[in-house]
């Protein structure tokens, strides 16, 4: 069993990738679409892993960057006549640049101050899309742009391959000196500075990478949906992305992929919850944070788990993947 765990730890991403690639062969059309959305979300949330998980900069406006990517793609194609691939590349570049603007407030702000700024940013983007009607189509949204692939399945394969590559890159980054610099920024900005970490640069990197991934995810969203409207990019969406990154453990790429797909899928499994879906999510998140971060409660909880014979789960929870971040 332990060996199996070892194997999974080592080849987890590979196994996950193969599973995802095989999935369309065995899923019905609608389930497949939900899976596609899950993978697309995972790409976005991978960026949040770098930003929130590694660097500890709480962003509550990530839907705004997603919107930027999606709309940039659609509008470049429709208004400026770009070819799809060129449009996609430019859309990602534009989103990265917009995301970089957010790094500047982050130089001086942290914690709640930054979080409020990102909320504001997300709302500004949404209101602009809603009201700049001649360009963005306003509340009607935009449609009728051409797509990257004619075959929907190809979008999916492209997405999965991209996701796995991004996940590998993110993992590498997390273990490297740069990842360490980001994590140090989260825990102790001053200590990091004194140790020779250029914190500003680290923040720029974190924002740029997360914006780039949000842009890519947005481009893919535009390709999946074939239609964009502002109500897909509300602040409520931003909080569900936050949920995905927190439930993913805030420290591992595999965790992010699994939690993004599961959280995207959950409404289907939890049909009976209907309107109380988000209620359950947020409650789970509240309880999880409380149990996991207060040692006394955690011990008691693990004790209960052990009592009921769920020993292995309890031991695993003690140190998931052996990669627990401080305070994470």
């Amino acid at each position: 069993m332990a060996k199996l765990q070892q194997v999974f730890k080592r080849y987890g991403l590979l196994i996950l990738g193969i599973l995802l690639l095989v999935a369309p062969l065995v899923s019905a059309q609608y389930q497949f679409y939900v899976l596609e959305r899950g993978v697309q979300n995972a790409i976005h949330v991978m960026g949040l892993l770098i930003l929130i998980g590694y660097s500890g900069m709480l962003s509550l406006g990530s839907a705004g960057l997603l919107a930027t990517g999606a709309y940039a793609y659609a509008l470049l194609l429709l208004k400026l006549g770009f070819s799809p691939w060129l449009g996609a590349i430019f859309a990602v570049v534009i989103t990265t640049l917009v995301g970089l603007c957010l790094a500047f407030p982050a130089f001086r702000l942290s914690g709640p101050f930054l979080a409020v700024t990102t909320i504001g940013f997300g709302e500004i983007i949404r209101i602009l899309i809603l009201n700049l009607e001649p360009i963005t189509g306003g509340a009607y949204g935009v449609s009728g742009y051409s797509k990257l692939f004619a075959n929907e399945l190809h979008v999916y394969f492209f997405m999965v391959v991209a996701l796995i590559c991004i996940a590998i890159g993110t993992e590498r980054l997390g273990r490297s000196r740069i990842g360490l610099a980001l994590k140090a920024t989260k825990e102790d900005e001053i200590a990091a500075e004194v140790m020779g970490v250029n914190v500003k640069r680290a923040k720029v990197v974190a924002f740029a990478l997360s914006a780039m991934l949000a842009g890519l995810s947005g481009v893919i969203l535009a390709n999946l949906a074939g239609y964009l409207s502002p109500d897909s990019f509300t602040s409520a969406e931003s909080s569900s992305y936050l949920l995905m990154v927190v439930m993913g453990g805030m420290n591992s790429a595999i965790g992010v992929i699994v939690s993004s797909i599961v959280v995207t899928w959950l409404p289907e499994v939890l049909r009976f919850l209907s309107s109380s879906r988000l209620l359950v999510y947020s409650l789970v998140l509240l309880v999880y944070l409380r149990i996991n971060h207060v040692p006394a409660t955690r011990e008691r909880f693990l004790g209960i788990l052990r009592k009921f014979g769920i020993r292995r789960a309890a031991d695993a929870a003690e140190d998931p993947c052996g990669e627990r971040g401080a305070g994470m």
Partner: protein
Amino acid sequence: MWRTGGWNVMTEQKKRGKAILQVQDLTKRFGGLVAVNNLTLDVCEGEICALIGPNGSGKTTVLNLITGIYEIDGGSVTFENAQIQGEPPHSICWRGVARTFQNIRILGGQTVFENALLGKGYGNGGSGVLQTVLDTVKFRKERETFTAEVDEILEFVGLSDLRNERARNLPYGKQRILEIGRALITKPRLLLLDEPAAGLNSKEIYDLMELIEKINDRGITVLLIEHRMELVGKLANLVFVLNHGSKIAEGSFDVIKEDPAVIEAYLGKGGN
């Protein structure tokens, strides 16, 4: 009461080598409070200097000013003939000034190795994001050198066997050592230690003194803040005494411990 040097200092100055750190008329104000007042001190290459003074005399503030954490209100800081005031902390670190903190600031959730690796900093050359993500040859080579360097230092400070332990699980004394080790990774020429002996037991203090001497033997200049006088007496070539942000004495430990101004500062007026 002002006592900046005397003839003994002058003679010592002759014996001293080239100045590595020169602090000139350093001043820092917090609102109406003057935390550091026209402080001038020199630290020369290869020395172990100590900065002492009663609580609240501004010692840590001086370190924060040298390392660029606080903005300087007046005066200058020169390190190896270059003025460094106004530079951000990371670039002061890259110049070769490393420090530890009074209250330990390590990454509790990361391993000892990772904590030490943080001393390699970020932004001063080396592999960038793209190379890291693509795992290029250059990045791999760099990683190997880094690993070797970090392991060498861990060996040097005696933390090799705890390499993969989480930092927060280390005993307090080892955490202090880890912080010093991390500072050494940055390849400093000047090491600033902020109360390294605070909270240690006598055995640990003894080990610490040995370590500091070993570090000094490597050619690293040390400036330390300390309350433990036995440690100061044993290690420091030169002691600066601070009170209310001003330097009230400077000299060898044996000289300043007899200095009435210093005794008054520590024991209050009427002290003997």
